[in-house]
């Protein structure tokens, strides 16, 4: 059925191209039926792309090796889950996933907001169509998932490091995040293009933006956990360009989420927000480009991938078009309200934005500097962890501090005295924690100590917010304290959900500092019965074992773990040898101690013929707080995203008032 898949993609391309061109003309000339036609085209494109996706899925499930894509990414031995997940493990399939998600959520966003944002939708449709056209163009003419060949006996299989349950979740979640950022971009540019926008599109698309940002953030953490377990070097984030590719748009999206609040409430920062949302979208495209083309290996391997140049061209076009549109509408965007005081919540949001964007830019520079250097000077350089770690600390610490101070500062103008008073308790708590930690030996990492002190400050400030809020609610409404608490959060979801997210970020910081600043490592050769000591753990090598799995041979070293004389069981660490792919992968042993939130990390490097084994053992303190933070992050985001009946009613009233203005 490859023909059907190709046909579906061609039809989809025609539809989105029509949506772009006809939609643009209809919006410009104000033609109602033509716009409806273009909108229908967008909806229909989703159906067409879905059909193409189903064709590919069916081919994968059937092990139809006449599809070149199926043959190069799966094999007969590959378990079904991974076979289906190879939909997105290859270039063509992942482009198809991009287009599927784009047409899907694009259609949904347009359909749900058609009646609510009458001036913006006419422009959002062609913009979405244009973006989709690019991907459809690639799929039809450059990288088709439906290329055929003479079916070989078996396929080439999947890269062993991808054969992991995370492969099932990480890419789709990542894409929901990446592609999801298209929605606020399309609406923002649509608002600019229409020239007559009010701010309701921000309120209407707020949840879309928040959801995408949440998916992206969670996917980044999921990817980190995957790397932690699978690549197994003992760390959780390597500042690899592929990781940074997702981090950059997330940072800018975070900045956007904050400053758009200022626009909603104070009608300020409109130009800045337009720049931010365009930047976030371009970075998400750039991230896709980084992971698709071979450009991260070397600028010379750029030509190996067929689509690198296309992506770069598209990003340039998007950036240029957005810039042109913003400049064209500059008079409209100039706000009439000005920043009144450097000590105000508006200012705090502004500082937050500056640090986030600065951090995103340093990451961007770190990623492209090697390429620039090679292209311009002919000298290849590598930018390593020290560069990123330095700026992560330099920008991260002030950001954490702002998380604590921001919510305590009033809008417009806050007196330093009032701020000082609000900060008293949290600052006191932080100081106590800092001194205690110093006495406990945390001074070995000064940056870590400062980080922990700030973390304590923010957590205390957040706790104070919850306490004060609950107390006020209780004073108002009576009833029990838990009831007051739930009522407080229920009525102020954005604020308190936001606080939970902040707490999650602080938790992440605590975990990151723990593993980064306070870990221990030990390596050596162990004969059977020999022990090694790391931190307060003792590991004894008991022997090696072998096992045959579906598509690999597994070799493991069994080690007994004890701490302070107490037996903590055994761990298995070793290697897997994959037959079809002719590759070996490290399978590390991770023993998580949830009470201390630390991990014992064992890498069995080498099995010697004399029965001895070479191991590397690492103790990662507090690392599990990072994963916990991920869950708390999602929980906080869910609170903020939760539909609010009162808010809906208020918005409905506003839309009615606007509807009453509808044309005669």
């Amino acid at each position, binding site marked *: 059925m490859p023909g059907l898949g190709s046909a579906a993609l061609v039809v989809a391309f025609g539809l989105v191209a029509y949506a772009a061109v006809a939609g643009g003309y209809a919006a410009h000339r104000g033609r109602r039926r033509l716009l409806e036609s273009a909108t229908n085209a967008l909806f229909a494109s989703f159906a067409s792309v879905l059909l193409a996706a189903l064709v590919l899925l069916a081919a994968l499930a059937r092990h139809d090796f006449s599809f070149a894509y199926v043959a*190069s990414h799966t094999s007969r031995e590959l378990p079904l889950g991974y076979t289906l997940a190879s939909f997105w*493990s*290859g*270039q063509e399939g*992942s482009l198809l996933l991009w287009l599927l998600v784009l047409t899907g959520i694009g259609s949904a966003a347009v359909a749900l907001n058609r009646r609510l944002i009458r001036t913006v939708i006419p422009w959002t449709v062609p913009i979405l169509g244009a973006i989709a056209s690019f991907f459809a163009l690639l799929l039809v003419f450059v990288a088709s998932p439906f290329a055929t060949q003479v079916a070989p006996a078996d396929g*080439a299989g999947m*890269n*062993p*490091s*991808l054969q992991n349950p995370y492969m099932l979740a990480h890419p789709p979640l990542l894409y929901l995040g990446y592609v999801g950022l298209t929605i606020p971009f399309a609406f923002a540019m649509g608002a600019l293009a229409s020239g007559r926008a009010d701010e309701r599109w921000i309120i209407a698309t707020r949840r879309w933006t928040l959801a995408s940002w949440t998916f992206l953030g969670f996917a980044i953490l999921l990817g980190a956990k995957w790397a932690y377990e*699978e*690549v*197994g*070097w003992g760390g959780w984030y390597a500042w*690899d*360009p*592929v990781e940074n590719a997702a981090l950059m748009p997330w940072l800018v999206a975070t900045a956007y989420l904050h400053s758009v609040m200022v626009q909603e409430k104070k009608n300020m920062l409109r130009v800045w927000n337009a720049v931010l949302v365009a930047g976030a979208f371009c970075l998400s495209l750039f991230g896709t480009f980084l*992971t*698709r*083309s*071979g450009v*991260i*290996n*070397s600028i*010379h*391997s750029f030509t*190996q*991938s067929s689509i690198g140049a296309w992506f770069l061209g598209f990003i340039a076009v998007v950036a240029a078009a957005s810039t042109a549109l913003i400049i064209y509408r500059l008079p409209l965007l100039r706000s009439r*309200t*000005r*920043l*009144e005081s450097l000590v105000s919540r508006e*200012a705090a949001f*502004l*500082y937050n934005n*500056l640090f986030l964007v*600065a951090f995103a*830019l*340093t990451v961007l*520079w770190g990623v492209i*500097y*090697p390429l620039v*250097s090679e292209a311009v000077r002919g*000298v*290849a*350089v*590598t*930018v390593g962890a020290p*560069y990123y770690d330095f700026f992560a600390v330099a920008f991260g610490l002030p950001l954490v501090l702002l998380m604590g101070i921001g919510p305590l500062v009033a809008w417009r103008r806050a007196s330093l005295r009032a701020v000082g008073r609000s900060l008293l308790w949290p600052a006191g708590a932080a100081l106590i924690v800092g001194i205690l930690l110093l006495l406990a030996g945390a001074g070995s990492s000064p940056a870590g100590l400062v980080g922990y002190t700030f973390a304590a400050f923010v957590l205390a400030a957040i706790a104070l917010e919850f306490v004060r809020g609950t107390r006020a609610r209780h004073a108002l409404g009576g009833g029990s304290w838990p009831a007051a608490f739930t009522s407080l959060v229920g009525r102020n979801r954005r604020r308190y959900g936001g606080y939970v997210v902040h707490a999650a970020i602080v938790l992440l910081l605590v975990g990151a500092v723990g593993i980064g600043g306070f870990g221990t490592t030990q390596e050596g*050769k162990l004969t059977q019965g020999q022990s090694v000591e790391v931190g307060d753990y003792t590991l004894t090598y008991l022997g090696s074992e072998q096992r045959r799995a579906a598509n690999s041979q597994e070799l493991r070293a069994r080690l007994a773990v004890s701490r302070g004389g107490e037996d903590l069981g055994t761990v298995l660490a070793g290697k897997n040898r994959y037959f079809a792919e*002719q*590759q*070996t*992968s*490290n399978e590390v042993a991770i023993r998580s101690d949830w009470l201390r939130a630390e991990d014992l990390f064992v*890498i069995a*490097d*080498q099995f*010697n013929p004399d029965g001895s084994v*070479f191991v590397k053992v690492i103790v990662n303190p507090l690392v599990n707080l990072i994963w916990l933070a991920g869950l708390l992050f999602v929980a906080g985001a869910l609170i903020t995203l939760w539909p609010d009946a009162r808010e809906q009613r208020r918005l409905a009233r506003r839309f009615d008032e606007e509807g009453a203005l509808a044309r005669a």
Partner: protein
Amino acid sequence: MARRRSPARLVIALSVAAALAIFLVYTALAGGTPSLRPSQVAGHDGRVSVAGKVVGQPSGTARGPEGLRFTIKDVQGTATLPVVYRGSVPDLFKTGRDVSVEGSLQNGVFVADKLVTKCPSKYTNKQS
């Protein structure tokens, strides 16, 4: 009431931009480890990092007395360099992969103690 003009924003933005520019210039000049091609290593005495593609069959083991012996070649070219490595072998190491090794040249052989494999493009065909 609201002050009509507030240069605050401009001042903040400019100062941050200035600080950032200084950082970037600093790192551009002093930062980044030079990464050489195998053809460029000869003559370098100190510690360097070399990037190339693994060719042929690696022999020995990284934790053995001899270390892991393999050859890397210029990504765009034919110059090769023999490498001896001791340490942890990362997951993705195999013939045909692009790797980066750090160490120094000793008697015509590059003795490395750090080995990093570049994330292979999961998205290009197996053949490339």
